[in-house]
């Protein structure tokens, strides 16, 4: 097998795997006579996707927006808080236990509270997406800062650098790969958050569409919604991965010098 063939197969692998799974699913549905309400055949789901394309797109875009707004808020606040926690032992010991406690709370539990506070609509979904994707960003950025080599710190201090200079010149660049690694996790979590909020109680977004479809026993549309969320998740993940490559090329040196 030539190197080119090998590469082509590697690129095709995810698609082939997906195709194989769908075929398996389709065959299983037919062979075991599974009723559509339990699990619709993939071909049936695609049929619905094509039929209700404009409807799906509209609800998807609503979800995408709320997710992205929540995600960007999480990046902003997560970065700030991560830097603060990583840079100051006092802030670390003060806030870290609280953050862990807060992260342990199932986010389903806070959606009803949010609705009492801010009503229904986009806002609770944005807040849930924010809250759920915030934690991994904080932890990773703080880790990036906390693991500065002691020698590097000594070197900067011996040059007379202030703490702020150490943070700007060493800490922040060093935390960047950690930030981007966390973004890939946080991006998909943000979708979990917004869809969760839309499903628990909302009047918009793909979560609401899925909920109302399943209330009408329209599982094909529910599954079409699931597929749509998965596609959006992969899309945002890929965007994060691309930006990561651009911004922290040096962290991928192993692949570059190969």
């Amino acid at each position, binding site marked *: 097998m030539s190197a080119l063939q090998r590469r082509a197969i590697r690129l095709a692998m995810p698609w082939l795997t997906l195709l194989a799974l769908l075929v398996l699913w389709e065959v299983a549905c037919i062979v075991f006579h599974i009723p559509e309400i339990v699990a619709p055949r993939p071909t049936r789901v695609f049929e619905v996707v094509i039929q209700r394309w404009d409807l799906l797109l509209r609800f998807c875009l609503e979800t995408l927006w709320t997710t992205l707004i929540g995600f960007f808020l999480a990046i902003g606040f997560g970065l700030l808080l991560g830097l603060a926690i990583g840079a100051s032992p006092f802030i670390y010991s003060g806030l870290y236990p609280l953050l862990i406690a807060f992260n342990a709370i199932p986010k389903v539990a806070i959606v009803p509270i949010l609705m009492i506070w801010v009503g229904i609509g986009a806002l609770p979904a944005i807040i849930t997406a924010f809250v759920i994707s915030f934690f991994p960003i904080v932890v990773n950025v703080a880790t990036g800062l906390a693991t500065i*080599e002691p*020698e*590097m710190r*000594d*070197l*900067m*201090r*011996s*040059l*007379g*650098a202030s703490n702020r*200079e150490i943070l700007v*010149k*060493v800490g922040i*660049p*060093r935390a*960047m790969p950690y930030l981007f690694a966390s973004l890939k996790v946080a991006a998909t979590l943000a979708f979990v958050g917004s869809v969760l909020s839309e499903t628990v109680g909302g009047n918009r977004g793909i979560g609401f569409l899925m909920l109302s479809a399943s209330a009408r026993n329209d599982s094909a549309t529910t599954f079409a919604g699931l597929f749509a969320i998965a596609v959006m998740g992969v899309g945002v993940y890929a965007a994060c991965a691309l930006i990561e490559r651009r911004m*922290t090329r*040096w*962290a991928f*040196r192993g692949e570059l*010098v190969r």
Partner: protein
Amino acid sequence: MPSPPLVELKNVSLAYGEGSERMLALGDATMSIDDGEFVAVVGPSGCGKSTLMKLVTGLLPPTGGEVSVRGQPVTGPIKGVGMAFQNATLMPWRTTRDNIMLPLEVVEPHKRRLRANRAEYIARAEALLASVGLGGFGDKFPWQLSGGMQQRSNVCRALIHEPQILMLDEPFGALDAFTREELWGIMQALWLERRFTAVLVTHDLREAVYLADTVYVMSRRPGRIVKVRTVDLPRPRTLETTFEPAFVDIVHELRERIQQEHAE
């Protein structure tokens, strides 16, 4: 009348931790380093050599005794220091040139002048790189360089702001023997040209004798200075020098003193 020493340590000791966990890392060290002198500190591993260096630069306050630089007691990190460690600690996100220019972004007066005189400083960095045989490598990233090249860049970074005191903490320790010996020559050439004061911490006795004017031998933990040996071999020393009887005798003498430490 002799000029006062640049760096003076009087009965300096340092203990880490408190209470029952208190551990003496360095006990009762007295040293005096003259302006422009090349000093080496050798000793068994874990004897507090690196601690000594942190004390001299003011990164750590001593728990006993007094450190003074130019007659002034040291209370915080002193000015005009360059440091190079065994681990090159170059920043992977910066090119080699930008790495070397790091001190210029932090140390006055360069920090103030850098923006307006960037071209001049870049030329200085390139000249320094060329003087250690790294001409043309400024645009490469540190991870594209070999270990020896990284360590040369490390030394360049420690020297770019023309510090009065250069602190070297086993800078050649992780290199292979050939590269290490090559870097001794480069280090000596830099020192002969610029005549900064240098403190080299090492466990390589040949390295110490090759480079230093004075070698301090430390005991096992808690580290004490048990021997001071002046090396009066003519400079520039070459690899040939290291095979001459006078050189070998000094190395042997130091070796015996350290052996004694291990025997106890």
